[in-house]
């Protein structure tokens, strides 16, 4: 437990950080003790990442000071922060795609031997051994030479965690490390964190999964609009209270729960195919499975990204989903797990929203700018995309708003079937609830196939869930039988 007399491992005093006119942080005090897990929560854009980027040496504060073990520090880059014992897992997955897994884990400080005491040489054997050992803590054993770019999103997240764990540090910062992870991996991570905590490492933990925060944190700081809204000790907060404190009062209503009428069959894969998917009108079907169970491949094949020979019946019409274009033409839309695949980051909200339906805004042979603008504005209102300016670059939007833009793309297109991959990862509770509501609205007319590592989300949203195990459908659990523990057992976690 935290001894009140010990010095903070790291602290920030009166931090102010502006980006142009935006005040990301407006005077934040924050500290973390050795052997403490200090959670940092807040809505998207509250300033969490900005604060930890200041600890990590990425940003310099406009005002205020950082202290590490009582000594004031001025970091002029990530290097300096790392040297001071601060290691960060940044929110964006940053690996070098062309380099191997082992090498990625030791980028920055590879193990070195010296010839004759001078000529440095990378010690590859040790590099691989280090990587193997750290990954083993997370029970993950990938091909150490495989390029990082060939790993899935969740696997890359594990590599990022391993990369941070390998460095011996006094302060470990994790910015949404579990966004795409399954419960099994999360449990392993927590076990590792518990061990580090015992060794006296100070841990700053950012997450939008408030359940995790309650389970893990010794202390929790809630940021709102760049200010500390509240600080609470373990036991003084639960998920609902945190959510209220972050947003200033709101509660997610449970699913409409009314028994859904099984509509007509919208999508039917050939029945002889093992694991064939069948989706009906107004149905929300979930896909659940552990890392590598093949749920993401289902979406990839139905959207034509990894096309398969043979046809799929869409509303009774056989179609070959040979590429995304064919899938879109068949009325399918896809929300990928990685937002950079769903959005053109340097383009405006407007351009992104109209992209899949450019052909629809033709008026008398020319592109109907006014019509498109009207449609975009309408959608921005319906989805409450902020700021409400269609010419903002999406790169300047918060994650939740970015996710809404991806949804808006497909609503503008009028698709009847949405494929969702981790639709709310990294999105704050309020935005998540908004997106859930939007999806429920959509499901009144259309159908949804949804892959999520967040089992609670599946339970909340789905009419039925397919549990995947080693690429096969192990079970289909209907709404009436759906709860987290049963789902968890079904996927073999």
């Amino acid at each position, binding site marked *: 437990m935290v001894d009140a007399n010990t010095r903070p491992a790291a602290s920030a005093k009166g931090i102010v950080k502006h980006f142009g*006119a935006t005040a990301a942080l407006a005077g934040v005090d924050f500290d973390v003790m050795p052997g403490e897990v200090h959670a940092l929560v807040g809505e998207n854009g509250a300033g969490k990442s900005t604060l930890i980027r200041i600890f990590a040496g990425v940003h310099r504060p406009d005002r205020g000071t950082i202290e590490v073990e009582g000594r004031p520090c001025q970091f002029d880059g990530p290097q300096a922060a790392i040297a001071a014992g601060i290691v960060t897992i940044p929110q964006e997955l940053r690996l070098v795609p062309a380099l191997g897994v082992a090498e990625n884990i030791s980028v920055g400080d590879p193990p070195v031997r010296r010839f004759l005491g001078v000529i440095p040489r990378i010690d590859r054997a040790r590099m691989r051994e280090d990587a193997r050992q750290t990954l083993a803590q997370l029970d993950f054993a990938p091909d150490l030479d495989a390029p990082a770019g060939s790993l899935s999103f969740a696997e890359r997240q594990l590599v990022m965690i391993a990369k941070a764990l390998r460095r011996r540090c006094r302060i470990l910062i994790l910015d949404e490390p579990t966004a795409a992870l399954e419960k099994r991996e999360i449990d392993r991570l927590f076990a590792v964190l518990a061990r580090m905590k015992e060794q006296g490492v100070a841990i700053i933990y950012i997450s939008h999964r408030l359940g995790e925060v309650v389970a893990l944190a010794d202390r929790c700081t809630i940021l709102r609009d760049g200010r500390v809204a509240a600080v609470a000790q373990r036991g003084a907060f639960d998920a609902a209270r945190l959510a209220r404190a972050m947003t200033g009062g709101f509660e997610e209503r449970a699913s409409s729960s009314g028994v859904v009428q099984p509509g007509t069959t919208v999508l039917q894969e050939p029945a002889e195919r093992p694991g064939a998917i069948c989706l009906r009108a107004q149905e929300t079907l979930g896909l659940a499975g552990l890392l590598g169970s093949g749920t993401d491949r289902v979406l990839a094949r139905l959207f034509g990204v990894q096309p398969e020979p043979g046809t799929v019946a869409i509303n009774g019409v056989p179609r070959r989903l040979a590429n995304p274009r064919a899938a879109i033409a068949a009325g399918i839309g896809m929300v990928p797990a990685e937002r950079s695949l769903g959005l053109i980051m340097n383009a405006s909200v407007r351009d992104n929203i109209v992209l899949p339906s450019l052909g629809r805004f033709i008026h008398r042979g020319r592109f109907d700018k006014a019509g498109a603008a009207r449609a975009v504005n309408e959608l921005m209102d319906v989805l409450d995309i902020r700021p409400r300016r269609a010419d903002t670059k999406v790169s300047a939007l918060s994650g939740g708003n970015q996710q809404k833009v991806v949804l808006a793309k497909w609503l503008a297109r009028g698709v009847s079937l949405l494929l969702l991959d981790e639709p709310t990862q990294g999105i704050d509770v309020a935005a998540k609830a908004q997106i859930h509501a939007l999806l429920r609205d959509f499901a009144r007319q259309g159908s949804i196939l949804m892959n999520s590592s967040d089992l609670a989300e599946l339970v909340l949203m789905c009419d039925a869930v397919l549990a995947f195990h080693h690429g096969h459908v192990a079970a289909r659990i209907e709404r009436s039988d759906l709860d987290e523990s049963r789902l968890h057992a079904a996927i073999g976690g």
Partner: protein
Amino acid sequence: MQRPLRARLAGQAPLLTLILLCAVTALLTDRFLSPFNLTNILVQSSIMAVIAMGMTFVIVGGGFDLSVGSTVALSGCIAAMLMPVGGVALGVLGGVAAGALVGLANGFIIAMLGVNPFITTLGTMVLVRGVVFIITGGAPIGDEGLPPAFIAFGSQRLFGVHYLVWVPVGLLATVTYIMHSTPYGRRVYATGGGREAAYLSGVPVRRVIASTYIWCGALAGLAGVMLAARLQSGQPTAGEFYELTAIAAVVLGGASLHGGEGTPAKSVIGVFIMVVLGNALNLLNVDSYWQRVAVGAVIIAAAAADRLRSR
């Protein structure tokens, strides 16, 4: 609210550079603003402006085209070879078609086979130059004289402005419309801005990429025909280094070589920067060796100034 304003101002760095360049030159020599010299600058810019507009398509789409210089020579020679037998119209058509064909080949190899644009267009640059030498035997075409109407097109004026200048003026309006206001144009931006994301939004990215090279080839072809009119002959050695000048102009205009950014109008501003700079150095009688130093320095300075916008 402050950001967009500052961004808008900073986005005009190329224009400001051009204005600064003109102002300084005008102060140093009164000849600069003479009507003769202004016409001069317009005519000198016209051909490169056409090439740069084509290059804008390619660069916005995320590509790169080194073959435009050779294409200029090819289409000029083909136009000059066709005119005596088929008249001006056939010559112009043939020249533009030849350029489009080179673009088609580039586009096919790059978009469909997935070969790197740099190496592909370096290959076609060398190859097409060889073809030009083969079909012309290395000698200029049109020594016996091209049709007078064509020669006139290269030297006469309409409403006081050279025909050669009207071409990019008309094109600029058209090309801006296409890039800005048609679904096709938006697809080009989307493809260059994020190829994967565009693909997942149903954009036929390969076809879009291929099309940008066809545009670039066809416009280089048109530029080649214009150059033939200006040179009153098809010149097999024409167009050397045009590729670098054109790319430099587009980038000076603020386009990103990563794709997704740039406009035809700004590329034309980039062309003006290059042309005015050369003109100013000549008017000021700067030694040709020192001219190189000045051109290099100004290119870098202009690009550095443009960096301010992203700071």
